[in-house]
């Protein structure tokens, strides 16, 4: 996989979403949308992807908006950059896990160029923005020539680099519901070196506590970089749901989360063992941080 100059392609700048969908439909696999380019152009330089047509999205200013409405939640356009999210006070205060995730993507340069939509549609198993959004029960809106449809973000990822986007479709919105009262959320990440690449184990935890502040009314744990797609640690959540969040419960939940994300049979490579252990460590850390958050309200 040698690094090279970019391959040849044609560049188009459709005037609206409809035109984007038309072009995507018409050219299918031979066309790709260009958001920040921080993933796509690298894939192209390595000849992993060689689209004949790149679709510039600079005319779609509607897709570069963030809006928040009390009671309704957060509406994010796919072209919002990670840096714009980091600069948004509302997101920092109310959707802190997403804020943290965006602040940890790449480097400052990459954060100024890379977009939320790009991060999600690139669908790397280690996409930082996915676990926090999944933990918040985000919905994605997708537009095609046949119209618009919505689906939970959790169902958007089908495999490494594969999303539920059909030919001719483009991601147009990410909706994050308002967290209920007495909720907290956190995203923690640790770079992990496997044999070849530096993946990152990411854990997002969302908890709503009861009026006494000690029992778990609702919990969602989302893990990144431990499976072909971001996943929910549902068995770990079961351990916690309805229970008082004591130290033994935290330990147990973290241990189950680790088991859920790791193969149980056969010998595993040392690097995989480390990653599994870190799921446990980070899940514990995240749960404790969320508890500290809700208890400080």
């Amino acid at each position: 996989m040698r690094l090279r100059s970019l391959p040849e392609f044609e560049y188009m700048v459709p005037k609206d979403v409809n035109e984007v969908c038309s072009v995507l439909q018409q050219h299918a696999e031979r066309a790709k949308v260009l958001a920040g380019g921080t993933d796509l152009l690298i894939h192209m330089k390595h000849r992993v992807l060689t689209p004949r047509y790149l679709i510039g999205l600079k005319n779609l200013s509607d897709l570069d908006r963030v809006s928040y409405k009390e009671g309704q939640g957060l509406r994010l356009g796919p072209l919002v950059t990670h840096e714009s999210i980091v600069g948004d006070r509302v997101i920092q205060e109310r959707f802190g896990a997403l804020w943290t995730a965006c602040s940890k993507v790449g480097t400052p340069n990459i954060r100024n160029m890379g977009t939320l939509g790009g991060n999600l549609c690139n669908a790397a198993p280690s996409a930082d923005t996915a676990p926090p959004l999944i933990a918040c029960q985000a919905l994605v809106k997708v537009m095609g020539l046949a119209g618009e449809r919505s689906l939970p973000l959790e169902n958007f990822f089908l495999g490494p680099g594969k999303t539920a986007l059909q030919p001719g479709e483009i991601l147009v919105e990410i909706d994050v519901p308002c967290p209920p009262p007495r909720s907290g959320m956190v995203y923690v990440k640790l770079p992990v070196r496997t044999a070849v690449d530096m993946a990152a184990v990411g854990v997002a935890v969302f908890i709503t506590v009861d009026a006494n502040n000690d029992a778990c009314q609702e919990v969602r744990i989302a893990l990144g970089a431990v499976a072909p797609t971001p996943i929910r640690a549902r068995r770990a959540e079961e351990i916690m749901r309805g229970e008082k969040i004591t130290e033994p419960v935290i330990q147990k939940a973290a241990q189950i989360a680790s088991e859920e994300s790791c193969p149980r049979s056969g010998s595993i490579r040392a690097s995989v063992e480390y990653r599994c252990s870190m799921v446990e460590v980070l899940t514990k850390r995240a749960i404790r941080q969320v508890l500290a958050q809700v208890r400080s309200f």
Partner: protein
Amino acid sequence: MTELSIVGRSVPRVDALAKVTGKAKYSVDLKLPGMLHGKILRSPYPHARIVSIDTSEVEKLARVKAVVTGQDAPEERVGHIRDRYILARDTVRFVGEAVAAVAADSIEAAEEALELIKVDYEELPAIFDAEEALEPRASVIVHPALLQCALTPQPYPLYRFEPDRPNVYIHRQIRKGDMEKGFREADFVLEHKFSTPAVQHSCLELHNAVARPEPDGGLTVWDSTHILFKHKADLCRLFRLPPSKVRVVSLYIGGCFGGKAGTIVPAIASLLALKARRPVKLVFNRDEVFVDGASRAAMTINIKDGVMKDGTLLAREMRMVLNAGAYSGSTTLVTKNATFGAVGSYRVPNFKLDSYAVATNDPPTGAFRGYGSTEVIWAVESQMDMLAAELDIDPVAIRRRNLLKEGDEDVCGMRTCSMGARECLEKVARWIEWDKESPREEGPWKKGKGIALGNKYTMPATRSMVHVKVHQDATIEVRHSAHEVGQGSGTALAQIAAEEFGTSVDKIRMVFTDTALTPYDAGSVSSRSTFHTGNALLRACRDVKRRIFEMASARLETQPKDLHLREGVILVQGSDKSLRVADLFAPAGYLLEGGELSGNGTFVGPLESEDAETGQGKRPVTYYAHGANAVEVMVNVETGEVRVVKNGTCFDMGQPINPKLCEAQMEGGMGMGIGGALYEEILVAKGEVLNPNFLNYKFPSSLDVPACGNVKSMIAAVPHDEGPYGAKGFSEGGLVAVAPAIANAIFNATGLRIRDLPITKEKVFRMLKSITDKELPPK
């Protein structure tokens, strides 16, 4: 000695303005009329016979102006052992070996042309394990005709071949005393094996050269390197050109650290340029640098020590094996000189060392800052702490006990002088508050302190020449060939010239590294420039001043010895008579006495004979710089993460020419040392580099080094009689003691001893886990 006014002061760098405005030019910035872009086709196999190469499709392309293969390349080869064709001929020996090259009118056209070259390979068995390759009956012989290769001449003994070990490039020996007796008399014997991985210099400026064919059949080459006269000699030999027809120029260099010593890049650029009859710029991609950028060889170090109860070393036996890769490059000399890391610091009455450079089908390796000392000191300084732990002696005390003193003989038989190690050790120990008990735990973080000693030799028998010219306006022009790779050689030399002429640095003009204009220099290698080029400069300055004072003494009716210079004015001791330098010239600009006001100085480094069997010699190195590091680390017991929170370095480089620039070298060494200690490793599987990029090969960012207030760089200067103003040289040295200091601090924090670099969090975690698994009672 008279008081110094410029030398010893931290004047601003003379090249800083050009660099902060983006105006400084590097060879990669050049654009010449008619220039083409070169690209290299590389072997996908670690070991194969080239059956055929078909370039016919490429030759049809209008945009491609030259295509070359091994058949077009010179028959002469390169390397310390001349074992490498610049383009492979019958055999490729590593994944990534250059097989063909094209020059086209754009990089894209050149890359596309490579796709059209058809190469037919017949794969051969390959060997990757250095220990396996070291064996007399190794399954694969990388260079069947190794012993028939010519050698690049060196002024000192280098080669000791091992005809019955066909993959050994060289074997180096040091023998002193009676090992059997030493170990027998020891109270305690400790033996361990350490290892360091292959690491990449990762200089920001990619490997590159621009070659232009000249009408007389010669070449001009702009070369990103630190050793331009060696490259010129190679190019003359490769292309059968007389020295008068080959000009090599280095502009500013965007980092080197030894990685640009090889001649492959300018040679292939030259080959293409001569074939195309147009200038060619050849630039490696980052992944090419990882594969063919002469990374540092992986090394294993076995070290067996016999000590007395009080920590006195009686006997030390060492064995080092370097995986030199597919071609000898500079690693042969590294294998010899790395051993000085084990020689420069301690007094050991009985010493035995064997080091081997071994050929494998891994990528070829070469010089890397420290020239092997870093890896050897990794082992020695880790072992010193392990001895201290076993004997229950303080790590600082055990080092003090065994340190060489002025006048002592080291294990090579050289008399120790300019030995500042003791003071460096004391200074860093005091700074880190070594004796003070500090809080040991902060949540999951355990804290610890560690110390290590280091040294860096400078090789013998090299020479420099400098030319100095004084202009009518009393500005001084210095023509020299010490490369500016970032270390500040230009500034240090300007300060020396300013000191000599009693003027300021802004009156000094530097003309550097252009073989058409600047005289011979062995290069900015081995931390030699301040000492060697500096000494040559001193002599050149004094040569010119002698002329000035001769001319002036007549006019001033006094003796030359009563004269001195200050700000372009010749002053007379004890009188107010004076003469301006300008007064020695006619208004039209020529010297009244004829010609120019200039002079030369040459400095030749010491050369003493050396015994190839025992490594004994009076002067196997020119000098050693000595230093120490003290660090404080935090180890996270949950994740295995290690953070270096404090680093103190102290070095004895003799008289510092520019203290702030010396600090800068220590700080840079700290950064590189932290990378080597905790993160860096070139991962190779079946000869293929798996992480040839900055995404997966991590070296420190601004977040991975201690806060400014927790970094201290100190100087403990012990002047060297032979150095300019007592200066030695030391830029490499800032690196050598960092990794063992970190490992020793990790041991202090957690009781964990890790002997294989890098100390990744995965390794720490695994060791912690295996300890806790044993300690915890079953649930």
